[in-house]
């Protein structure tokens, strides 16, 4: 399997992209910003098309669009840190929907521009940008994707502590002088980098699976933040490796589909395990036993913020 060069490239880029998706995805799920991540992955497509229409390198447009829209969402305060109830999320959801529909509308415009200048390849180009092709990466592209993803991972880990504080107890963090808004913007900009990098490897539309599945599974399995972050990264890398191996064994299966199916399958499994372990102590409680082993369903804020 490792004898072919395209496979080595796919493994190199895929591993680091998956790691970045898992780690930042843990915060995305915690902050209830899955929709924002989804919107960023769609925005990559108009960005790439705009660059193609203007005749510059696609990647420039890709990164510019996702980072700009990411910081824009953060800047408008749309990204918010309110995770518990729908109160704060309602307005932010709507605004994300409107903004990314507009950017996609611009995408149609660029698609037409690009299509008229380059013949009938526009639709195929769109499909390529939307779904990526992990086996089509060259050596240089793979190394660059890996480097960008690694940088985004390191960046996310660097702001992990204050970001955790802001995400879990926004008011207390603000009172302590943590720059909540700057962190929110910074995180969304980082998410933009992750989205743009992942777009090349797994495609804009399939990024969502790697961002959501492993992270949501980790949230289900453990309430401890740093364990959860590590678990999310590991599960995402596992989904990537498993997907590549499976699609290598069964060539009819496209790698993106297998990778996303594995990632979502992890979440489903974790949810079932979580339901099962939570139901058992409840029964034993009815019988009068202790329930000290019950896992905490949500992140335990006090242990992480103290010290």
């Amino acid at each position, binding site marked *: 399997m490792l004898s072919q060069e395209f496979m080595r490239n796919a493994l190199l880029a895929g591993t680091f992209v998956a790691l970045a998706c898992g780690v930042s995805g843990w915060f995305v799920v915690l902050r209830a910003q899955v929709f924002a991540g989804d919107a960023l992955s769609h925005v990559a497509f108009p960005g790439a098309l705009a660059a193609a229409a203007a005749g510059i390198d696609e990647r420039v447009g890709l990164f510019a669009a996702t980072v700009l829209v990411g910081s824009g969402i953060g800047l408008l305060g749309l990204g918010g840190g309110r995770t518990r109830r729908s109160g704060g999320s309602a307005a932010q959801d709507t605004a994300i929907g409107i903004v990314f529909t507009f950017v996609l509308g611009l995408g149609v415009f660029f698609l037409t521009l690009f299509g008229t200048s380059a013949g009938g390849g526009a639709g195929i180009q769109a499909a390529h940008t939307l779904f990526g092709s992990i086996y089509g990466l060259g050596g240089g592209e793979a190394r660059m994707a890996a480097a960008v993803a690694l940088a985004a991972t390191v960046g996310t880990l660097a702001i992990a502590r204050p970001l955790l504080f802001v995400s879990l107890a926004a008011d207390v963090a603000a009172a302590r002088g943590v720059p909540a808004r700057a962190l929110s913007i910074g995180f969304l900009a980082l998410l933009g980098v992750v989205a743009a990098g992942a777009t090349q490897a797994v495609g804009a539309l399939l990024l969502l699976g790697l961002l959501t*599945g492993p992270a949501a599974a980790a949230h289900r399995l453990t309430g401890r933040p740093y364990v959860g972050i590590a678990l999310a990264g590991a599960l995402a890398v596992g989904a990537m490796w498993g997907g590549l191996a499976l699609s290598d064994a069964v060539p009819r299966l496209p790698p993106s589909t297998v990778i996303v199916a594995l990632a979502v399958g992890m979440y489903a499994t974790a949810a079932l395990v979580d339901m099962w372990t939570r139901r058992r102590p409840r029964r034993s409680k009815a019988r009068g036993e202790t329930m000290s082993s019950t896992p905490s369903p949500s992140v335990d804020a006090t242990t992480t913020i103290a010290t």
Partner: protein
Amino acid sequence: MTNPTLTWNVVRDASEVLEYHFMVNALLAGTIVAVMAGLLGWLMVLRAQTFAGHTLAMMAFPGATGAALIGVAAAWGYFAFCGVGALMIGWLAGGRTRSWSEQSAGIGAVQALALALGFLFVSLYGGVLGDLENLLFGTFLGVSDGQVLTLAAVAAGSLLALAALGRPLLFASIDPDLAGARGVPVRGLSIVFLGLLGLAVAATSQVTGVLLVFALLVAPAATAQVLTPRPGLSLVLTVAIGIAIVWLGLGIAYFSAYPAGFYVASIAFALYMLARVWVWARGTYASRRRASSGPEQPEMGVIDVAPPEGVIA
């Protein structure tokens, strides 16, 4: 039709547009869609289910490709996937103990799985999916008489259902806990609403394409809810704004080389931003006046609805 050009005579331009049967059909379809999408979108914005709506729109992709794979009409595949998606999201979002972050993660997982399936169908199908661009960004030039009738029937059916469910649905949307305590079947209503939303998304995507449905589903409702807190008035405004967006968008697209989806999305976005700026300007003006004279102004942009009475089951 030889290169239509826009002149300053609006009446002449409009009559030129209406001379063509396909434009009349497009405008009819657009109007039906705007009314249906406006009303269901209004509830969707109120219920903060924009992400769910987007996910239902994405169901078009596995639906259409799956239907192409087994050789049936795309609409059947679409409705099948939409129905399953609505059930899954309704089930995920229904539990009252679930946190907001878990809901959004669940919806994201459903969408990711749907897209992965769609991609699998494409590669199993093998051929090039020629109308991918139309699926994503819509086409309005080929709307037939039959399609207009189908759209009208779908819209009439779902609006009737909406009228029948309106009061309990509004109650459950505004205060699910209180509604549940009063015996309103909150989870059942949520699933039925998502099913209706799926129908609206399917209808809207005929005009704007799958990726741009929010131009008619979210933008008019969000604009209206920014402008007025009164539910009745904002519903009327929503429908009016939606129809205006469609007519303007289709009209301009007729005279230009670029697709209608671009104009529809841009006009929708511009109207929303105008409303935001207008409310912001009015707010600063009012607060300046309040600083000098004193009377309290109610804050704008917040839906303020009392739970409807008499919904005890």
